[in-house]
């Protein structure tokens, strides 16, 4: 029915007309929606469910708690002035949200693995756990207060059940219980938690009408959007600023080799590659004084299974005078082409003594990284160079604990000829053993990974050469040294 008066009506008339026109009760869906409490409590209870569950795939273990915490924040924000218990719940949620979101942002940097095990963060984790219990307690008291205000019998057993089930899970985690029935227990616990939440919601059915949500200055949608932007921007900054090690780059020049010219000349004469020699420190050159012979092996490697091989790895062994069977081993790498991205890089060294009982260590591992820019060479010590004991899991060998030498570093985005080397001395324990020294170079191909992991961590937790954004190149210097010759095996 079209009424010509609609257009002519002024605002007041139109409003009065609308008010007088709806005489039929609204649809059931509208009746169910017109409540002061359902939106807030639905958000709180959904938030609790999402922050409780842990699904370790598709990043759901990060996404669901982040969404759940935002829902709890919005839900408790609406109820914060209802009574002091619900006000406390809001305060606790703010703390837990800051803790969770800061952790999620920190996860985008390579520093999370060093910061999370710190005593302060351990303490905060403990506080966060206690606050989770405190939050359920306050929720229970808060809902009881609402029921009392409405003149209804105080019942909020669902919140108590939540505390109990959380307690069971917490105790299982505390005793580090692992077993086949754990999955079943957790599943039953989760179903019980969901049932408790449902019960809690039903317990508020009538008392909830006594709730008066607090007015807000920022809309829920805007607040949720602000949280999402904060998280995305924080993670982006984390990827941008926290994906590399800080390196102590210093300008170097030919002057640093002054006094070692004679040894250099001798090494070149024996066939030591000049491009490797120029990168060595004066101390490493001096360690080769009196060299008897040089064995060299060069390989170019791909870092993405393509035909392009931008990583050149040169293995050099220098036989030293004096005691028979003393060698100085060098593993040198050079990026002949820019691979496109440098995040964190790592070298895992399996020295000769690691693989064969015919050799022993005769000193410490040394080395450095270098690059050129505008005709100037810059060098830096490795960000980390030393031994790491770690447990890795492999589908072939199962769980294994090992101790290896690792070098970790980052390269700058600018410059060219990015390179470096590791050197160590070995001595023969017995004759007749192959000298077999391995150089496992792990390259990070992209910054896009969450949570962020360093190349060294990736290598330590997984024996595969392809692991997420990391690719490991394995190179070995292998030869059989005798008094007359040193035949390369590769």
């Amino acid at each position, binding site marked *: *029915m*079209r009424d010509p008066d609609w257009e002519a009506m002024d605002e007041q008339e139109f*409003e009065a007309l609308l008010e007088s026109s*709806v005489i039929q009760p609204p649809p*059931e869906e509208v009746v*169910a929606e017109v409540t*002061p409490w359902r939106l807030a409590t639905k958000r709180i209870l959904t938030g609790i469910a999402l922050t409780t569950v842990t699904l370790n795939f598709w990043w759901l273990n990060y996404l669901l708690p982040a969404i759940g915490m935002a829902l709890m924040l919005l839900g408790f924000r*609406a109820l914060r002035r209802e009574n002091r218990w619900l006000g406390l719940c809001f305060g606790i949620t703010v703390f837990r949200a800051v803790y969770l979101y800061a952790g999620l942002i920190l996860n985008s940097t390579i520093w999370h693995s060093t910061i999370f095990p710190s005593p302060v963060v351990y303490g905060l984790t403990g506080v966060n756990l206690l606050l989770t219990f405190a939050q359920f307690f306050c929720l229970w008291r808060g809902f009881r207060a609402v029921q009392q205000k409405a*003149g209804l019998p105080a019942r909020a057993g669902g919140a108590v059940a939540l505390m109990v089930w959380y307690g069971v899970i917490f105790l299982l985690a505390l005793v580090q219980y692992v077993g086949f029935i754990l999955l079943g227990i957790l599943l039953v616990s989760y179903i019980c938690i969901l049932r408790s939440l449902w019960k809690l919601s039903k317990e508020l059915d009538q008392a909830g009408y006594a709730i008066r949500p607090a007015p807000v200055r920022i809309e*829920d949608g805007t607040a949720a959007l602000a949280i999402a932007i904060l998280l995305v921007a924080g993670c982006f900054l984390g990827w941008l600023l926290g994906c590399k090690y800080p390196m102590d780059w210093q300008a170097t020049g030919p002057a640093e080799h002054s006094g070692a010219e004679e040894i250099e000349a001798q090494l070149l004469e024996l066939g030591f590659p000049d491009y490797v020699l120029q990168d060595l420190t004066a101390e490493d050159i001096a360690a080769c004084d009196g060299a008897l012979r040089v064995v060299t092996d060069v390989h170019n490697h791909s870092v993405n299974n393509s035909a392009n091989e931008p990583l050149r790895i040169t293995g050099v062994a220098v036989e030293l005078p004096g005691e028979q069977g003393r060698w100085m081993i060098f593993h040198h790498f050079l990026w002949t082409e820019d691979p496109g991205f440098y995040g964190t890089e790592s070298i895992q060294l399996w020295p000769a003594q690691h693989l064969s009982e015919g050799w022993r260590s005769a000193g410490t591992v040394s080395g450095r990284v270098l690059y050129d820019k505008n005709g100037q060479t810059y060098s830096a010590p490795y960000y980390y160079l030393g031994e790491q004991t770690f447990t890795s899991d492999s589908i072939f060998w199962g769980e294994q604990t090992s101790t290896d030498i690792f070098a970790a570093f980052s390269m700058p985005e600018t410059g060219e000829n990015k390179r470096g080397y590791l050197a160590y001395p070995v001595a023969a324990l017995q004759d007749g053993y192959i000298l077999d020294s391995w150089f496992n170079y792990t390259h990070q191909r992209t910054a896009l990974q969450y949570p962020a992991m360093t190349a060294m961590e990736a290598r330590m937790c997984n024996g595969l050469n392809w692991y997420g954004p990391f690719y490991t190149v394995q190179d070995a210097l292998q030869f059989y040294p005798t008094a007359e010759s040193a035949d390369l095996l590769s």
Partner: protein
Amino acid sequence: MEERDIIERLLGRDETGLHDLLRYYGPLMRYIIAPIVTDPHDQEDCLSEAAMRVWDRVDQFDPQRGSWTAWLTAVVRNTARNHRRAVQPHHSTQDLDENTPSTQPTPEELLLRQERQAAVNRALLLLSPDEQTLFYRKYYYLQPTAQIAAELGTTERAVEGKLYRLKKRLRKLLGGEGYAGP
């Protein structure tokens, strides 16, 4: 306390049913009354009146036609509107309940009103669920903007903006595509 138990006792003319109606559904009834009847003393009177109306008409409740909550809120809302008109006689000349004493409209007025009501109800069906809820909160439950804003987790200004757009849309739906807006 089960809903069915209270209804059965009300139907059985058991006065404890009335007592429990006020006890268990009092918060809901007060929630419906508060925006319509703003004076606290009048609110209590209105609550008693609404409870009596439920007592008198509980036999008209048909579970096949809707939920108990929907029926109860409709009775309470209409009682509150009539109560407001009774205590503020000049507030409104509109009458929405056939049992409410009011000035009798002429047959033409009655016909025109019915046509308008039918047109508004047809237009309501074309609104989204969120728009419908907002409409009923404002024009059926007569909730103030501040209350709607707090309960929807938004600002009063945002609610005013939504209501403005809602009215514009309704005018368009009621007046046809040619309507250019106020």
